[in-house]
């Protein structure tokens, strides 16, 4: 395969962004639909190329793409811009282009008639280009460049309806919280450059170089740990921000203020998974450090159960899905931390499809009801059969029910956890139960029972309708993948072997997996979760209110999100920083630093005013002063000479 095609995958959506921003938006305002067509065409071609790349890499191994000079300063730094197309990248390319294409098609229906239609597709194109650049980059610097690029697009798209104060606030929060993590990432890049220079005489950002020399970095000590540990932890802090892991998880639920297709693409399937991808990309570096691996596994497992607990009680369907995303990303992190590199990426792959589908389903429900509050929905299964069916499939998949996609990857992560970190395995197993419960809670609340009136409340007339075909078709495609994407495990070599660049036996077979005991345990946990949701929200054997009273302290803890928003925003940012530390700085600046400056000026004035009194203009006084002076000098002369 010619390597120009790899460039084309990245450049096509970038071109789409340029065409929409500089041609369609200013000059063809009356045909905004062309913005959508341009985006879809560019990403569609990108998808074809991506699939081609995947097949090529599958057969021939990584593709070599010659790099281009960017900045060269002799004796100090040489920065190339190059592409790294290996198995990991090839898989990510297909995920990104496929989900993006589906979301763009769907968006034509969802965003129909919105005043910012062109702007929306311009940003979506830019996002897709940045995301593709991120997975294609062959060095850390350019990975970071596109890393920030997707962050920017996320900011712009969360704040797409910027006239809503909540949207503007959420956009800002997302950018700043993720940037907090990026600070560590940037520091890690600096450290890696510095240490590779010590190692070889010329610093580098090259990812493959890091793969080969990670063990050497692990041998160099630095501030009480190895360089590999510090670098890995720094990189991980970037991943924690981007993938909304604890303690930087607070931005993702708020990010739901953006248009729903944006949530599906950016805040479920691709950008938030970039953190997982980043850790996978630098996996040899992490493997070289025990501490880093432990940190990844612990944070991942904790986030998985922590976020799931909040997902249990939310009434906004998108918020449930947001917490679910955080929780699932935690799963992937756990997978990486317990050396299940392929398992984690497999889960990322499957999750991208079923989670994007869940969001599109929520968007479809919103399209009909005008609300995201599940308490105002209900009964949608009759009027929206396609939305219901696809949403149900995705829910079964994420709940980890055999033989749907989610089952296969979740099972592999659990197997790795059991082997390396049994304590974390228990957390993950409980999370399986919680996941199944909150997902089927949304299914029953949204689609089961009777319609409760939508945005208008009980008294508005129900005018439910299925979404147009342009929205349904992408959902059906994703539903097929939500069932079958896990079966890639059975193709020649299997998903894990492919990722690790080897051809061999498939990891597990369709039925043989059920011969082992542990898959049954996780399966039963999932089914138990579904049954509990059924009992509470469909059959109403126990009402949710009763459960809420029973577990009142927990309910409060979960629904107030453990008070993290208050802690960060009110206590840390407002009280401690802005009205504390920074306030003191400002006072210091105004009264001490500038006060001193003005004080010197004032002092000069006062001194001048004082000395001016001597300038009386009376000759007698001047004469007297001269006489005193003469006498003084004469006296001094007489005494000393």
């Amino acid at each position, binding site marked *: 395969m010619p390597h120009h095609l790899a460039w084309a995958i990245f450049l096509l959506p970038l071109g789409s962004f340029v065409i929409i921003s500089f041609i369609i938006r200013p000059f063809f305002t009356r045909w905004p639909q062309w913005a959508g067509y341009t985006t879809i065409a560019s990403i569609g071609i990108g998808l074809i190329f991506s699939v081609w790349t995947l097949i090529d890499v599958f057969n021939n191994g990584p593709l070599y793409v010659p790099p281009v*000079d*960017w*900045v*060269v*300063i*002799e*004796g*100090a*730094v040489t920065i190339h811009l190059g592409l790294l197309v290996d198995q990991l990248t090839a898989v990510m390319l297909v995920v990104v282009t496929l989900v993006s294409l589906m979301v763009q098609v769907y968006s034509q229906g969802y965003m129909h008639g919105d005043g910012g239609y062109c702007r929306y597709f311009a940003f979506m194109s830019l996002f897709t280009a940045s995301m593709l650049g991120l997975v294609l980059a062959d060095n850390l*610097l350019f990975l*970071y*460049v*596109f890393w*920030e*690029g997707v962050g*920017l697009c996320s*900011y712009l798209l969360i*704040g797409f309806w*910027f*006239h*809503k*104060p909540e*949207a*503007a*606030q959420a*956009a*800002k929060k997302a*950018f*700043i919280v993720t*940037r*907090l993590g990026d*600070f560590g990432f*940037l*520091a890690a890049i*600096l*450290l890696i*450059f*510095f240490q590779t*220079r010590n190692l070889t005489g010329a*610093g580098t950002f090259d990812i493959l170089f890091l793969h080969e020399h990670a063990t050497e970095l692990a041998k160099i000590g630095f501030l009480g740990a190895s360089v590999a540990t510090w670098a890995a932890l720094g990189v991980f802090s970037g991943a924690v921000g981007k993938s909304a892991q604890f303690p930087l998880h607070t931005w993702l639920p708020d990010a739901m203020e953006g248009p729903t297709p944006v949530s599906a693409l950016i805040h479920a399937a691709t950008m938030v998974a970039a953190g997982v991808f980043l850790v996978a990309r630098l996996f040899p570096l992490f493997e070289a450090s025990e501490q880093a691996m432990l940190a990844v596994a612990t944070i991942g497992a904790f986030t998985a159960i922590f976020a799931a607990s909040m997902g249990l009680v939310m009434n906004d369907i998108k918020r449930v899905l947001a917490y679910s995303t955080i929780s699932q990303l935690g799963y992937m992190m756990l997978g990486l931390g317990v050396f299940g590199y392929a398992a984690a990426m497999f889960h990322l792959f499957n999750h991208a499809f079923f989670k994007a589908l869940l969001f599109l389903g929520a968007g479809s429900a919103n399209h009909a009801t005008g609300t995201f509050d599940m308490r105002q929905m209900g009964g949608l299964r009759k009027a929206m059969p396609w939305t219901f069916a696809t949403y149900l499939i995705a829910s079964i998949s994420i709940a980890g029910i055999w033989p749907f996609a989610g089952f296969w990857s979740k099972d592999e992560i659990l197997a790795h956890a059991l082997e390396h970190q049994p304590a974390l395995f228990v957390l993950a197993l409980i999370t399986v139960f919680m996941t199944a419960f909150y997902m089927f809670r949304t299914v029953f609340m949204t689609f089961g029972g009777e319609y409760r009136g939508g945005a208008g409340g009980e008294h508005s007339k129900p005018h439910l309708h299925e979404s147009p075909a342009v929205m349904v078709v992408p959902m059906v495609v994703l539903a097929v993948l939500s069932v079958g994407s896990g079966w890639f495990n059975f193709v020649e070599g299997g998903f894990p072997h492919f990722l690790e660049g080897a051809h061999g036996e498939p990891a597990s077979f369709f039925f043989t997996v059920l011969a082992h005991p542990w898959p049954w345990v996780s399966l039963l946990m999932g089914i138990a979760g579904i049954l509990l949701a059924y009992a509470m929200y469909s059959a109403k054997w126990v009402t949710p209110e009763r459960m809420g009273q029973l577990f009142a302290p927990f309910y409060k803890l979960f629904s107030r999100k453990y008070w993290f928003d208050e802690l960060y925003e009110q206590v840390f940012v407002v009280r401690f*920083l*802005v009205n504390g*530390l*920074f*306030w003191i*700085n*400002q006072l210091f*600046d105004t009264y001490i*630093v*500038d006060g001193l*400056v003005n004080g010197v*000026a004032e002092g000069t004035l006062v001194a001048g005013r004082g000395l001016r009194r001597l300038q009386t203009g009376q000759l007698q006084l001047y004469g007297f002063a001269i006489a005193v002076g003469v006498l003084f000098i004469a006296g001094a002369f007489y005494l000393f000479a």
Partner: protein
Amino acid sequence: MDSWYLTIIVFLPALGALMVALLPKPSPRQVKLTSAGFTLVAFVLSVVVFALYDRNASGIQFEQVAPWIPAIDSSYHLGVDGLSLPLVVLTTFLGILAVLVSWKIDLRAREYFAWLLVLETGILGVFTALDMVLFFLFWEVELIPMYMLISIWGTGRKEYSAIKFVIYTLIGSALMLAGILLLYFAREPHSMDMALLQLRGVTPLFTAIFFLLLVAFAIKLPVVPLHTWLPDAHTDAPTAVSVILAGILLKMGGYGMIRLCVNFLPDVAREFALILVIFAVISVLYGAAVTLRQRDFKRLIAYSSVSHMGYVLLGIFALSTLSLTGASLQMFSHGVVTGLLFAMVGLVYDKTHERNLDVLGGLSRQMPVIVVVFSVAGLASLGLPGTSGFAAEFITFLGSFTSTQVSYIQVYTVLGVVGIVITAGYILWMLQKAFYGPPLERFDGVEDADRLEMATIFSFVAAIMLIGIYPAVLTDVIKLGVAPILPW
């Protein structure tokens, strides 16, 4: 081999000022067109010089030497190298844009534009002079127009700010003059020429010279705690003058530090590098902290300069090729980015007559073009990749972190990197306050940028993106200027 290019570039604006002053009863439009014409030619010529600069030969080029005061070996000596060339281009670029930004000024237009042009000549002289007397002369020339521009066409406490600026700078100048004289006598043979050899070693005399010069430049840059003239002067100056002030005048400080302090006295610079790096980090963090507390649009941007110039100081005194390249790039980048930010604040103020961020809000409906450009400027200021701000800050960080001249510089660099988080905080907060949220009734009917304004601000954007996407345009030249400075 003498080249007349630089002399023409430097004195074209002054000639323009003379024309403006002598035109018989010109209409304001004629005054503006004349000013625009002269600054445009100066800009075009400086781009020609930039293009013709021989990247293979490096060193000082386009030299012109004429004897001036032979008794102290002082000559009229102009020339550019990789360090000054980008700043010359920046000055002429902002020169023409400052004229365009001032297009709506009709109060005593003749005087205003004359002073603006004289100011440009003064700054260009500083960047091209290769003789210390000449350098000092141009350094002082810039003061008078600045005083006039702030105190006559400014707003708020304009007289206070103008006098504060002048006195502060003059204190620096006095110290610098003493430093230059000491330097003259310390060198054998005595000479005022700047293209001569370095003084190696650390002696009390060298140290004294170093700090006399340094304080003058530290005031200009500015370095905390010598910075309080800046927010006052920037805030009260008319828009175009704020653009020039933040865009180029501050760079005189950074340029002077490299050209005189580090270049002449590298060993003294290394001796005191650590303390200056600490001051740099303080400037970055303290500046950012105080910025976050500002409620006045213009004052906020003014304070952000204190923080951003801290990166320049960090890059300079990390004393590596890469860090000095980064510092130079940061000077250029900050010039364009903050120039644009001040131009944008000026536009918003012209149209809304409001600068209080608590009162502004929801303007993105009324000003769709302005909000886009303002966002680009803001994102460049917070160092988003793809803009010049990222390229400059990243190279500065990389050069500082890997420097071998200052002990524990890694720690200070990482502390400096914290600044980018706070910067993101105040920039996004500012954008949110001014532009997002529901449109306010009181700003109904406020107009967006007109054609001339769009041309002006899009020029800035083009420069920001060009440097951001392909920084080698500048670094290929800057590295030639930086290479000969560090002797070890």
